[in-house]
Every structure is written in structure tokens, then in C-alpha cells.
């Protein structure tokens, strides 16, 4: 022990660290620094900034006069915001539900040793490569009440066919669901297919040896194993839904009136075209809150699962 003490005294913590050595040790941190700055400012700083703005009475120009939760109160008194929130609930629920159902169904079908599987998968997934604006433009044309689907059906002999949801205040939000499901369901299929491929084949074989039928194997063994894929899909889809802005802009611009408005669109138009900066900031903070309300329990269960594993 005496010798030990002598050693640590004779050699101070870092004897003559050379400059190059110091630089070498600092390099990893220096390399990460630009991103740290960009992230801290661009994400966290700006988030706080928006939060602050939402508590002021800013309109056309930012003012830093504290106004408490006035903007939030105005928001909830605003018809258009309430419609937007309602629409988000309808849109989100249907969008997530249909994407999951279709994606899961197609993934199971594709997992049956299908010929040309690669090509089919490519076809299902290509809409994800398109801009939502393109998707919106196409579906606006297809669903056009006079020249689109309706005319096609009439020409094909179904003369009583009527489809005017795009101009129907009550139905317009469903047209957005159709276009969004068309775009994203293939993606969910890909997630589920990757999950199915990750299941240990030996388990399936064991179940077959035990005499289980194919539907039973899927119901009792495969689908329960897809829980993580299911939850991460829900996360991604919810994320897409809450941020949804481009699709509705291109397809309906929120109309007719503001019947197909969504929070993201509301935020944009109040902040940048109507000069209601404080209200816009408040609506953005609520969107963040909605996302956190979904994200935090998910992350919590993920972390807890990781700890238990």
C-alpha cells in the first residue's frame, strides 16, 4: 500500500500531455460540436422560444408582453381550431386503423412464399417515394366530383353512381384518409413483413409438428410476436397524422370552408397569413403536446421492457 501511494504521487494525473495528444482527445467532441449546437438551438432552443411566444399577445410581430394562457383560451374558443382537432381525431383514427389492417393483411399474404415477391413489394411501397403534394394533386383529380371517378362509373354503365365527397363538408375529411392510406399502407406492410421475417422459423415448425393449423399459428404465435412492430407502426403513423399538412393543402386547402382543416394547416395559416403569431405558437405547442402524449408512454414502456429483458 505504501508503494502504491508512492506511485500515484510520483505520477501526477497527466504527465506532460502533448498538444497533439490533447487535440486527438478533443477531436471526437469537436467533430460532434456543430451538430450539438444546431440541435440545442434549432430544436430545443426554438421549442422553448415558441413556448414563450405562445404565452404572449404577439400578432403580426412578436411582442414579449406576457399574456398568460390567453392564446390557449382563444384557441379553444375558436370554431376552426375545434374543427381541426375533430378532423385530426377522425383522420388519425381511420388513417392508423386502415393502414395497420391493410398493411398487416398484405404482409401476411406476401409471406406465403409468393413468386415475384420483390416486385409486388416494390409496387406496394412506391407511393412513399412521392411527395404528399403529388399525392394530393392526383387524388384531387381522381375524386373530382364531375370529371373523376363519378364520370368513369357513369361511362362504365353505373349511371346512378355518385361521389362528391370532395365538396361535401361532412365527408371531405374521408377523402384525405383515402389518399393518405393509399400512400402509407404499403410502408406499414413493409414494416410488418420485416417483423414476420424476424420470427424464428423453428417456433413455427414446432407448432406445425404439434399439429396446429396455419390460421391458428398466425393467430396464436405470429401475431402476438408482432407487438413491437405494431406499436412502432402506430408511433410512426400517429406522427405522420399529427404533422399532416402538405396532403390536405394540396387536396382541399382545408376546404370547403374549413371543413377539412387540420391543426398543422391551422397553425400555418394563423401564423403566417393571418398574423396571429401568438395563437399559432399556442397551436404548435398543443401539437407537440399531443405527440408527447403518445410518445412518452411508448418510450416509457420500451425502456421498462428493455430493463426487464
Amino acid at each position, binding site marked *: 500500500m505504501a*508503494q*502504491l501511494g508512492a*506511485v*500515484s504521487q510520483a*505520477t501526477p*494525473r*497527466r*504527465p506532460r*500531455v502533448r498538444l497533439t*495528444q490533447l487535440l*486527438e482527445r478533443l477531436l471526437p467532441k469537436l467533430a460532434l460540436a456543430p451538430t450539438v449546437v444546431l440541435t440545442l438551438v434549432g430544436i430545443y432552443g426554438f421549442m422553448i422560444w415558441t413556448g414563450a411566444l405562445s404565452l404572449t399577445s404577439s400578432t403580426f410581430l412578436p411582442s414579449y408582453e406576457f399574456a398568460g394562457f390567453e392564446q390557449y383560451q382563444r384557441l379553444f374558443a375558436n370554431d376552426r381550431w375545434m374543427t381541426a382537432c375533430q378532423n385530426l381525431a377522425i383522420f388519425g383514427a381511420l388513417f392508423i386503423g386502415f393502414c395497420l389492417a391493410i398493411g398487416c393483411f398484405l404482409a401476411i399474404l406476401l409471406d406465403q412464399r409468393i413468386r415475384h415477391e420483390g416486385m409486388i413489394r416494390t409496387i406496394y411501397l412506391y407511393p412513399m417515394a412521392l411527395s404528399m403534394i403529388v399525392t394530393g394533386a392526383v387524388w384531387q383529380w381522381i375524386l373530382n366530383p364531375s370529371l373523376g371517378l363519378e364520370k368513369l362509373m357513369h361511362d362504365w354503365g353505373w349511371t346512378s353512381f355518385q361521389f362528391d365527397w370532395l365538396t361535401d363538408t361532412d365527408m371531405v375529411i374521408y377523402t384525405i384518409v383515402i389518399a393518405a392510406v393509399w400512400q402509407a399502407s404499403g410502408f406499414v406492410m413493409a414494416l410488418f413483413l420485416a417483423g414476420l421475417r424476424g420470427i424464428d422459423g423453428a417456433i413455427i415448425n414446432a407448432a406445425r409438428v404439434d399439429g396446429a393449423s396455419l390460421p391458428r399459428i398466425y393467430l396464436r404465435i405470429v401475431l402476438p410476436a408482432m407487438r413491437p412492430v405494431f406499436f412502432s407502426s402506430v408511433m410512426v403513423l400517429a406522427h405522420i397524422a399529427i404533422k399532416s399538412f402538405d396532403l390536405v393543402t394540396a387536396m382541399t386547402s382545408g376546404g370547403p370552408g374549413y371543413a377539412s382543416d387540420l391543426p398543422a394547416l391551422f397553425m400555418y395559416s394563423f401564423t403566417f397569413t393571418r398574423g396571429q403569431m401568438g395563437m399559432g405558437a399556442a397551436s404548435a405547442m398543443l401539437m407537440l403536446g399531443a405527440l408527447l402524449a403518445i410518445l412518452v408512454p411508448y418510450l416509457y414502456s420500451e425502456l421498462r421492457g428493455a430493463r426487464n429483458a
Partner: protein
Amino acid sequence: MAQLQLKGIRKTYGNAAQETLKGIDINIESGEFLILVGPSGCGKSTLMNSIAGLESITEGGIYIDGEDVTHAEPKDRDIAMVFQSYALYPTMTVRENIAFGLKIRRMPKNEIETEVQRVAKLLQIEPLLDRKPAKLSGGQQQRVAMGRALARRPKIYLFDEPLSNLDAKLRVEMRTEIKRLHQRLGTTIVYVTHDQIEAMTLADRIAVIKDGELLQLGTPKEVYESPATRYVASFIGSPAMSFIPLQVEGEAGNLRGRLKSADGDEMFVPLPEKLSAWHGREIHLGIRPEHITQPLAHKQDQATIASGIFRIEVTEPTGPDVMALTHINGTEVHCRLDPDHTVAPGQPAELMIDMSRAVFFEAGQEARIDA
């Protein structure tokens, strides 16, 4: 070739409550082959990484040829390492792999080529020089990994379980090869393994480490024949040493212990005088299988020999020997018999115990009591 000193090395990770290394002191002589052995998680790999400079230590010092390198960067320590996974650069050919360290050290091109050729010849990998690692078998990758280390002619070589990814036959071959290389080049080697046979066959000295503590440092013979603790005794040797509980009886000058077979037959074994302080108390007798055998004529008359009848429960012929299992004082005991000496499972047989090779431990404790 160089001398390596480890002085009081301590390491604690982050805020961990437990120290990973609890003060390791080892002097490794120039040209010595030192093996660090211990169960997984004992800290031997941490110690290895600390020597290499890949991890910092919390306390203590590392000296190469007397020079303090405790805080030196890995590249300034002049150490080469062979990894368990070989860690060959996958995008480089074998030649480039071997040359990489030399290139970085700015060795002239023609000298690099000479060096690569020398190493390739030494390890018989010349035909592989232009292949990528993925195209090599496990054994070939192992050779390349050693070649990469040899090319640099470093002061010290570190081997981190280099053979554990090879199949059994290749492992034995490579073991011999490493031993031959060491004898030929006389390099200083620190070698980590959890395989006690590797440790016994290769090492000049073995350091047995458990829970971050150095339990024993000695030649393979010392560690095998005179283990410092019960753990060392049970870790080295296969099948493991048996520990038989017994009472110290008799009187001074004639201490003895009673052994009882499963059938109730009794015999006495002589105990060394050192145990007189333990008279009347229970101790554990540690004995290796090869010291419980069939009666051997040339040993029969020695004072430290005792014989008795025990029922053989299971026999396992291994070729050169037959391992036999019996119960003594209620404990399973392994014996090593000559295959020509027929014993039948379930039948009693006469066994001879060579007490001159026995070691003793306090019941339930780690430390030797007869050393």
C-alpha cells in the same frame, strides 16, 4: 521485447459500486509468456485493455522497460494485440492488413514489403496475401491476425482469447504454433484465456484472476500442484480437484483423518503435522483425480500412501485413462485409473490415495491452511 510492470492497478467504471480491478501487481519479465486466466467477467479483459491503453485506469501505474506509460496513447506504447474476433480490416487484403500499422508509422514502402514477406513466410500465409479476410477460414484469419501483430515487431504482444473461436482440433494446432513462435522469437506475451489447458500448456507463469483480484501468480506447476486458494485449485485441472470433508484425528506425530465409503467401509489417511492446530475440527482435503488410483506397486510402501475399498459408481474411459466416480465422506470424488486395471461400475475396488499431493482448506473458506 520488453519488461512490463503493473503496479497496483485499480479500475472503477463510472459510478459503479464495485471495482473491476482491485489492485493488480505483476512484473512480467522480458521474453516471458504470462497468461491471465479466470472466469468471464473477472476483469482479465479490462486489465488487457488497460495495458494496451484502450481503457484508462483509475489508480496505479503501467511501466514498459521502466518507462511510465500509464497515460500514454495506445499508439505510443508500442504494443500489438491479437483479438478474439481477429478484428481484421474487412475492406483490406491480407497484405494491406499486415502493412497498415507500418504504413501509419511511415515505414518506407520496400521495407514494408520485406516485412510483410517475412511475416507471411513465418506464418505460412504467403498464398493468402491478396485475399480479403472474408474469403479466409477461421484458422487462416487467426494467422493473419497474428501476422499483423508480428509485423510491427512491438515491445509487447497481447493475445485476447485468440483461439476461442476455432474448432477443437485447430485450437490444439494453433496452440502448438503459438508456443513454437514464442520459443523462436522470445517475445514478451500477455495472453488472456478462460481455458485452463491453454494456460497450463503455454504459460511461463499463470496469473489467476477472480473478481478483479489476483489470486495467484506462479508457474503452471506451482499453480497446479500448490494452488493458493480453493478457487484456484478448482479452476485449474480437469476433472476438477475433489474436496473431501474430514475431521483431524489422532495425536501429535500421528495425525490422521477418517474416510468412509458409501458402503460404510472406513480407512485412515495420514495428515501432515501442520494441521495439528486443527485437531478435532473439520477441514477439507483437496485431492486431484490422478492421486486416487488403483494400487501402484512402486508407491505402496511410502508413508503417505493409504488404501481402502470404495464402490465405483460410474466409469468414463477417455482412452489413456479411465475416470471413475465414487463417494467418500458423502462427497463425489473423481479418480483416475489405468484402463488395463478393470473395474466394473457398481462394484467395490481397492483405491490408493497419495496423500503427499493433497492440499487442505478450512471448511467453507478459500484460503489454504497447510501452506
